[in-house]
């Protein structure tokens, strides 16, 4: 159960740690977030150079074959440093869909550019009214020669303003909530008739509302079977987001504990107060449990186990609640300072809040976990 990391995995971890320590401290991140683009192409190129963008892809697809465990290792460190660049969107989500659902021609056309760091991607699946349901799709796609033409609205598409390509879910048949009849399409973000309204997200990133009015798209995977591909994709995304959350939780715990040992009130350090000690023990336990569940999920994703969707939902929920608890307490224990934009604690709080919305919140996933229980 405990992951005894291979030499390669240890190397990956230490090189990500080194890169982020040298190049991605909180001040560097602040500058990136405040920049015109809101992310750093220079850092993205460094991720590519280090092989991070190749790590999870199979060797057949031109990657390093590290699978979900390499994603876990990278994302835990990204979580510790609040990295804003769209690794999850480009590599894990879109890259995973291309690799698992795409044709050989699509592999060749797109994955090499992702690995090289020259193209950014994201997935546009959410719609107004879909909430967290992958099958609720009203955007339509109509066949036109070898291509399709897409019409509809997508909402809150993370990283869309940065992306070169989008993968868009659209209905080729059936009704609004039908599982069948949803297909996936590769769309050029700069295509004609595609309109983007960008906005800032609570965690310092960029997202967009997307309007498609007759936009040309290329089919990815089998027509009408997009929901199954999206489910598998969401499981991988959850694996990545859970690892990121665990990294953030660990960082918040370290920061809070350090603070409690220096901050004085009434002539003593606040860490000497038992009520705060017990709170921090509960934060420690939340981290330990989240870490264990994260490892369990990542190992299971790698093994392609049956019941993986249920486990992914369970982990998203449990780690989501753990993250919320730790983030709440970290702000609380930092007092007024925890409320400031200056201190990093509030930024971890916001990233965890954002993770807890992406691909479904803890309340959604706990019920999904219950519904997928064959024994109940």
């Amino acid at each position, binding site marked *: *159960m*405990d992951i005894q990391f291979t030499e390669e995995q240890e190397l990956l971890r230490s090189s990500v740690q080194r890169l982020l320590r040298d190049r991605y401290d909180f001040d560097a991140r602040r500058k990136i977030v405040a920049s015109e683009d809101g992310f750093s192409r220079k850092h993205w190129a460094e991720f590519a150079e280090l092989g991070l963008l190749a790590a999870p892809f199979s060797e057949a697809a031109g990657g390093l074959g590290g699978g979900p465990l390499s994603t876990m290792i990278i994302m835990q460190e990204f979580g510790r440093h609040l990295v804003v660049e769209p690794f999850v969107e480009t590599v894990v989500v879109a890259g995973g869909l291309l690799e698992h659902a795409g044709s050989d021609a699509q592999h060749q056309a797109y994955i090499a550019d992702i690995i090289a760091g020259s193209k950014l991607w994201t997935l546009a699946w959410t719609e107004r009214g879909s909430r967290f349901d992958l099958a609720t799709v009203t955007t339509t796609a109509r066949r036109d020669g070898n291509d399709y033409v897409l019409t509809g609205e997508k909402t809150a598409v993370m990283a869309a303003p940065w992306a070169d390509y989008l993968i868009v879910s659209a209905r080729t048949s059936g009704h609004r909530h039908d599982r069948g009849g949803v297909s996936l399409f590769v769309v050029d973000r700069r295509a004609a008739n595609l309109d983007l309204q960008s906005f800032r997200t609570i965690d310092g990133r960029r997202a967009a509302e997307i309007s498609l009015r007759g936009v040309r798209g290329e089919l990815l995977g089998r027509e009408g079977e997009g929901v199954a591909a999206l489910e598998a994709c969401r499981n991988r995304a959850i694996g990545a987001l859970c690892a990121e959350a665990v990294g953030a939780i660990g960082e918040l715990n370290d920061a809070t504990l350090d603070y409690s040992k220096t901050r004085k009130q009434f002539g003593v350090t606040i860490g000497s107060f038992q009520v705060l000690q017990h709170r921090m*023990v509960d934060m420690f*336990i939340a981290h330990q*449990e989240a870490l*264990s569940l994260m*490892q369990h999920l990542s190992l299971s994703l790698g093994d392609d186990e049956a019941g993986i969707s249920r486990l992914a939902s*369970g982990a998203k929920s449990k780690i989501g609640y753990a993250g919320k608890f730790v983030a709440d307490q970290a702000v609380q224990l930092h007092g007024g300072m925890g409320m400031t934009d200056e201190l990093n604690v509030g930024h971890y709080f916001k990233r965890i809040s954002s993770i807890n919305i992406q691909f479904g919140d803890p309340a959604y996933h706990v019920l999904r976990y219950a519904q997928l*229980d064959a024994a*109940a």
Partner: protein
Amino acid sequence: MELALSPEDAAFRDEVRAFIKDNYPAEMRVPNPETDLSKEQMLLWHRILHEKGWIAPLWPKEYGGPGWSITRRFIFEQETTRAGTMPPLAFSVTMVGPVIYTFGNAAQKAKFLPRILSGEDWWCQGYSEPGSGSDLATVRTKAVRDGDHYIVNGHKTWTTLAQHADWIFCLVRTDPAAKPQSGISFLLIDMKSPGVTVRPIITIDGSHEVNDVFLENVRVPAENLIGEENKGWTYAKFLLGNERTSMAGIGRSTRYLNRLKKIVKAEIPEDDPAHLEFIRDIARVELDVLALEATELRVVAQMARGIDPGPAASLFKIRGTEIFQDITELTHRAIGNDGLAIREHPVSANRFMPGPDYGHTASEKYLNSRKLSIYGGSNEIQRNIIAKAVLGL
């Protein structure tokens, strides 16, 4: 969730599983094994395990342990708890046994260890006293040396199953002038000695599990002193370390959780608004179990590689007991109005209880399991331990 096992360990697991299936006594499968079995019935499984050589997984081979690896001990623990077997008496096998083979002399080892293994001697624990709570160093029971005997006077309490016990291991104060921790000795006392009186304490679930034990001018041979006089605190702490292992209780929680799901299915219609609340609460507890189980497996794997787990036992105690309390509370809520009823003691199948069988022990389990966060070092004490040892506070 399973530990990744070598073929040999997997074969061992299958062997344990088959052994339980073939040998666990049917008459021990009663509604509430913790309260419904006689002393003789409780010992049935103990004797079977002893005959097999599996009674004391933690003990070194030279004293009668099976010589298992950490992984095999864990497998055994996992299989026996998953199957819902009654664990052998912890006070004998897990607690006093290791103290005797670690700190006792040759005569004590020869006299007591075989009788612990065979189940011939039933031990109880004389630690707590009225007013001592989690602060065990406040021991007031006095032992005064008189020739080759100690004269013991005092009052022990919360003594689990003392009504069945042949022996009690006691913390006694031998040096009243010393600092609280330094004047304590570890003494073994025959429960048949004149001056020993056991008085039942009935707990809120109606059961008789714990007792007061009064010691009045009890003459105890000095040869029953473990180790050195006034060094008892060291041995007591060693024992408490053993007490807190394997408290995650994953097997038990999993069994009770599966039972809870069946009860909810039978009791609460899907169109009842409470149904969704139960579904969600159960899912959350199930995830708590899963996360704790993953943590336990992570720690076991680390221990198997020789890594010190630190105060992981405190984490398991806190979360394991919180989880089991949640499950018993949910079960009690799930049976609705039938939760008003509680079985009378001594229990008997002939007494009327309303509602389906599955609900008959829900009230007493709910009430009884409130003890879990109090005993064995309260959960607050466990948090203190983690705060100090892990967080450095």
